[in-house]
Each structure stands twice: as structure tokens, then as C-alpha cells.
């Protein structure tokens, strides 16, 4: 962890999605769909988290000709990042009262994981 991050709404949404399953690996589009973010606001958040050491990323180890699509960039929480994200979300939830900002509190509250949005082909969740 390089230093404290400025917690924004988009960053909190991405952290919430990733903390649903801290060990899972998600690709950018998957995170964006679960967090409700498009490319213009998603990628800067991913870059910021990666620069801070909260996230790590790598290219998917598949053959594009076999899977019939380009390789995906996979993101996962680092061990420090999971701890940091949990602490940041908890502090953010405590600092925001439902009466003052119900929308923000809802965005900070875990609701559903990307795996529930994009279920695995076999029906099992990741």
C-alpha cells in the first residue's frame, strides 16, 4: 500500500464488488457491469487501485483462437488490498448516515457479487 486513497463513489463501488469474493479474479468489464460503471469511469478507478497496490492484474492465460474472443485482463485483490478495502468500506459506512445520503450508503453496502450477475456456465458460483 503506497498511501491513503481518496475514496470516491466509483472507487467504493468497485471495492464493494471485489470484496464480495476477495479471492476471485474478475475482468474489467465484469467489474464495471457489477458496479454499474462504464469504461470512462471504470478504468481510471482500476488504475488508481492498481497503483495503490490494492489490486493486481494479469492477462488471461488462454488462446484467443480457441475461446473465440480476445484475452481478458484479470484483476484480483491483493492480501493487503482486501484488508484495506474492508477497512475503508467499513469506515465509509460509519461516516455516512442513511438519512444524509441513502444512495451512498446503499452503494457501500454489499449486495451482490459479480458471480451472481454473471453466473458460471455450470451454474456454480465462483
Amino acid at each position, binding site marked *: 500500500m503506497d498511501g491513503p486513497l481518496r475514496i470516491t463513489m466509483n472507487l467504493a463501488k468497485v471495492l464493494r464488488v471485489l470484496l464480495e469474493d476477495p479471492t476471485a479474479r474478475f475482468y474489467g*468489464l465484469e467489474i464495471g457491469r457489477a458496479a454499474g460503471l462504464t*469504461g*470512462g469511469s471504470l*478504468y*481510471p478507478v482500476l488504475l488508481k487501485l492498481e*497503483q495503490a497496490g490494492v489490486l493486481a492484474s494479469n492477462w488471461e492465460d488462454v488462446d484467443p483462437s480457441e475461446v473465440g474472443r480476445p484475452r481478458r*485482463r484479470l484483476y484480483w485483490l491483493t492480501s493487503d488490498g482486501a484488508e484495506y478495502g474492508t477497512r475503508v468500506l467499513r469506515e465509509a459506512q460509519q461516516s455516512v448516515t442513511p438519512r444524509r445520503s441513502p444512495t451512498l450508503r446503499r452503494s457501500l453496502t454489499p449486495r451482490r457479487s459479480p458471480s451472481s450477475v454473471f453466473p458460471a456456465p455450470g451454474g456454480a458460483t465462483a
Partner: protein
Amino acid sequence: MTLLWWVLGTVFVPMFVGEFTDVCPWLARKLIHRAARRIPEPDRSRWESEFLSDLEEQPGRIWKLIWSVGVYRGAWQMRRMLGAPSTIEALRARLEAALRKLRARTPAARPEETKPEPAPNLFVSHDAVLVSPHHSRTMRDVVGEREDQRRRERLVRELERIQAGAVLQLREIHPGWSEQDLNGLLDMSAVEFARYVDGKRLPWQRTAA
């Protein structure tokens, strides 16, 4: 007129819409490439591949274009996060570099114009010096000296002529006078000479009287 609207609505509008939707993915890829160019090296190729990979998974043709516009907007933010200067700073740096280059450039040697050397006019320069306010007093003195000198020379020439005429007449009047007596007369001042002439009552003096 109705037929024209019908032709426009049934032929041209669908044609343009179809053409536009066909062009949208191409435009989206172009926009992604431009967005990737905003990101500094060495992260550029990585993000470009990721953008293109996610673009392929976007549904619809027009939505691809809309999504790429968002990525392009986000690329500017990522550019600043990756330490690249902002557009204003980059523009200012380029302008300053251009200005430094312009200032460092030595001016080209111009061929010297061959003007004819003006003939020296000493009088002009001398008069110019004299006419200047600093030398106005000197100018008056010089002019006065010249005038006095000319007057003196004129008087001397006149006196010489008078003396010469007087010597001739004296020789006629006093043929027995020696050369020494005549030279003594010539050495006299003008006043003494006039007094002497008056005393001798020369013919030309008597005529004038």
C-alpha cells in the same frame, strides 16, 4: 413533394442509418487507438489491448461507439494519473521549446550593401560643428575674425596703392629725394602718412579738398 419525402424516408434514411451503424465499430476502434495514445509509455500497449478486448465484448454497433467515447474521456484522466503532463502543460512546454529554439537561432548574415562613400566635405562638417548650439559662440567669433581679416586686407591693399601713388608723385615733386627718404615715408602709419600728405599739399589731396 410527398413523393420526395417518401423517397427520402424509405431509401435514403435507411441507407444512411445502415451505413452509419456499419461504420460505428470502425470509428470505435479508431477512438480506442486515439485514447491509448493519451496514455504514456510503457503502459500504452497494455491498456490499448485491454480496451480493444473489452470493446469486442460490447453488444451492438452504436453502443460500441458510445462506450469508446467514454473510454476516450477516461483516458485523459488516466494520463494524468500516470504522470504525463496535462494538455495545457504539454502545449506550454512545446511553446517554450519552440521559443528557445527561435532565440538560439543565429541571424543569417546579410550581404553588406555597397553604398558609395560620400566625398568628404570638410566645410560642411566644419560648419555643422559651428552651427551646433554648443559652438554658436565660436561660430560668431570665427565669422567676426574672418570679416576683420578681410577688412584689414582691403585696407592694406588700399594703403599700398595709395602709398605707391604717393611715392610716384613725391618723386615727381621732389626728384632730389633719396630712396631712404622715400622708404621712411612708407614706414609711416596711415595717420602720419595722411598728416604728412596734408602737410605736403599734394596735388591729388588739393583736388579732393
